[in-house]
């Protein structure tokens, strides 16, 4: 009796020592990381705000350490870095894509002057589809993205943009021609590739196959092969680039629930990682370069819990399932975009409020990078004016609202902690379902994921129709006398776009056909060989003047044309 009592006491003591040790380690790390940036922060009432609040009341159990831990410590529920937003806030990365490369350059330089500290390039839908501008009806060009078909176009896009100093996101799935163009621009400017930072955004072909369908370029097996080649190439040649961006955004936008989104996204990440491991890569060589791209909706607490749960699950998966030993591999880094689906065409100025709430959920969720939607998103590609408000929203949240003073400020809330656990359980059940189907690749091949998304999307629509889910201005608080606000629609100047096409045709006439033929031969050979890297050939070919459309046409011939499985 007395022996067991003392054992119990010893157990308690050990546990409390371990939390003290962890806390001391965090304090040490925090002090080191934050250095001279630390400052005393007081709230309006003059109370000093600590950088972190911890559950002193559960110091006698290991539960806190196991399920939450400290920021920058496994399982990263409270954030992947010890300082989080108190040390460095998020990257303000606004998605920009419109018109000609000249239009893009003008817009992106304005955004950088306004405080954005990273760039993002979205290609024209014709580019997503895999064709060059000289084969496309003029009205469709540049309305939703920039028309970038060769290295010269990219050079213009990035004119006076210091690509060795800012991080760039290239929104361009397999075979990553935009990034290939950018590497050639770097070469022209004498910038070494290890200075190039950023992300092959949306490189997750599975997400396009399931939800966005915009990849629609190569067959499923072809895309799988090119992605692994791309990761391998970057690992060797562009070591500070993130070649893998696992996308949860499309799946959530297409209708998956938040918990399903976590399950599907992490299942995709497992698939991509296992494909790389099967190629003989080491988990700790590739996983630190995995990034995630999530949607952030207006379901405020659920979103915060979603991100906390996702981090915790990924930490366990990378360490226990994928065998990673480097803590950098365990950290789920993510970019978030505020959800366009939540925005309404009715009373559109209300969307500014919605976006601010979504952005707050993302910040409290511990994001590393963010895009905020403009309020005119339900109508058009943002104009310069509305895009400025979207950037200002981020600036207000960062500068005025004191959201970054405390790390994981909702951590420890009974509700948030419980919800985090529940979201984790739900997501793990989805992952188990995908595993039972043979993994994410198999699950999307047979349509399992598409069916689940479709059902959730329909259920959500029915909730809105029945009024169970209330949307201000849509099914409640409608304003019959709503004054129409002027929404400006920006369409590219057709004269300038025609000039862009003419110059492109001229470029094709004047380039060395011999070099182009040779590069396409090399690409064909690489695609048909197991030992060559297809992406390396894409980079070489673009340097030889081969265009986006030509590369995709060649690879479609060799690797198969993509046919997403669509379940209506």
């Amino acid at each position: 009796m007395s022996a067991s009592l003392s054992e119990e006491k010893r157990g308690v003591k050990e546990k409390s020592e371990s939390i003290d040790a962890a806390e001391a380690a965090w304090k040490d790390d925090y002090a080191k990381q934050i250095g001279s940036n630390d400052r005393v922060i007081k709230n309006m009432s003059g109370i000093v705000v600590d950088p972190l609040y911890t559950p002193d009341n559960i110091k006698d159990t290991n539960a806190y350490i196991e399920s939450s831990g400290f920021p920058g410590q496994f399982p990263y529920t409270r954030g992947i870095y010890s300082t989080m937003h108190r040390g460095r806030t998020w990257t303000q990365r606004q998605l920009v894509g419109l018109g000609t490369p000249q239009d893009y350059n003008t817009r992106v330089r304005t955004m950088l002057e306004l405080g954005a500290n990273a760039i993002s390039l979205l290609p024209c839908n014709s580019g997503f589809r895999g064709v060059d501008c000289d084969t496309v009806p003029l009205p469709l060009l540049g309305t939703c993205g920039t028309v970038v078909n060769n290295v010269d176009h990219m050079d213009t896009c990035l004119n006076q943009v210091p690509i060795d100093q800012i991080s760039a996101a290239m929104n361009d799935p397999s075979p990553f021609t935009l990034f290939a163009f950018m590497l050639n621009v770097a070469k022209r400017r004498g910038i070494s590739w290890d200075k190039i930072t950023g992300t092959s955004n949306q490189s997750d072909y599975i997400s396009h196959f399931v939800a966005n369908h915009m990849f629609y370029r190569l067959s499923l097996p072809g895309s799988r092969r090119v992605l692994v080649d791309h990761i391998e190439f970057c690992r060797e040649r562009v070591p500070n680039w993130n070649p893998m961006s696992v996308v949860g955004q499309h799946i959530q936008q297409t209708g998956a629930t938040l918990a399903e989104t976590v399950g599907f996204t992490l299942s995709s990440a497992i698939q991509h990682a296992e494909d790389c491991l099967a190629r003989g890569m080491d988990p700790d060589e590739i996983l630190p370069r995995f990034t995630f791209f999530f949607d952030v909706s207006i379901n405020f607490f659920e979103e915060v819990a979603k991100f906390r749960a996702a981090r915790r699950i990924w930490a366990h998966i990378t360490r226990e399932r994928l065998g990673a030993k480097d803590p950098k591999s365990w950290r789920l880094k993510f970019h978030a975009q505020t959800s366009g689906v939540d925005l309404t065409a009715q009373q559109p100025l209300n969307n500014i409020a919605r976006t601010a709430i979504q952005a707050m959920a993302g910040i409290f969720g511990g994001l590393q990078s963010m895009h905020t939607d403009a309020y005119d998103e339900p109508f058009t590609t943002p104009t310069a004016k509305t895009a400025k408000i979207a950037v200002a929203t981020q600036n207000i949240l960062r500068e005025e609202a004191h959201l970054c003073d405390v790390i994981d400020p909702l951590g420890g809330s009974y509700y948030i902690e419980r919800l985090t656990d529940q979201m984790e359980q739900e997501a793990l059940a989805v992952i188990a379902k995908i595993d039972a189907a043979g993994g994410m690749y198999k699950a999307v091949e047979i349509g399992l994921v598409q069916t689940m998304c479709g059902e959730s999307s329909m259920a959500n629509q029915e909730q809105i129709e029945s009024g169970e889910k209330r949307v201000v201005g849509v099914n409640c608080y409608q304003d019959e006398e709503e004054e129409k606000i002027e929404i400006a629609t920006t369409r590219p100047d057709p004269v300038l776009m025609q000039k862009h096409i003419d110059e492109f045709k001229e470029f094709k006439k004047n380039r060395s056909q011999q070099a182009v033929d040779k590069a396409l031969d090399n690409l064909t050979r690489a695609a048909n060989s197991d030992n060559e890297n297809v992406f390396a050939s894409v980079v070489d070919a673009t340097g030889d003047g081969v265009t986006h459309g030509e590369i995709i046409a060649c690879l479609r011939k060799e690797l198969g044309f993509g046919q997403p499985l669509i379940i209506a």
Partner: protein
Amino acid sequence: MSQNISDMNGAPARALITKIGFDGHDRGSRIVAAYLRDAGMEVIYTPPWQEIDAVVQLALQEDVDLIGISSLATDHLIVPELMSKLRDAGLVDIEVFIGGIIPDQERPMLVDAGLGGIFGPGSSRDEIVECAQRLAAISREKKLQAMEVAS
């Protein structure tokens, strides 16, 4: 004009739900396809990125009464071309409606091109189904008249 969407032989109305142009967002088209199916129509659904000529061919082969176009990312700008190609192919009895993101300034262009309905975000199931049924009835009426003229 009848709310009953069958013709004189009692066959249900046939609707083609599709997307033209380059955008791949198909959440809306899938939902509308399900609405019409639930309302008793026969729905021919296609994935996105249909060529205009292919849509005209499909409409002809499937003998549809109406075509629903979903457009999120400016593909509505080439809908007038679809309308003129339908006319060129002699498919004057087919009614066309569109749903998605259509800026106000660009609506008149679509009305002028002869579209029977334009639906923005937040449109209800009832509005959409009612319009589709009305258009299907108009289409059937036109077909009937054409048959009478021919006989």
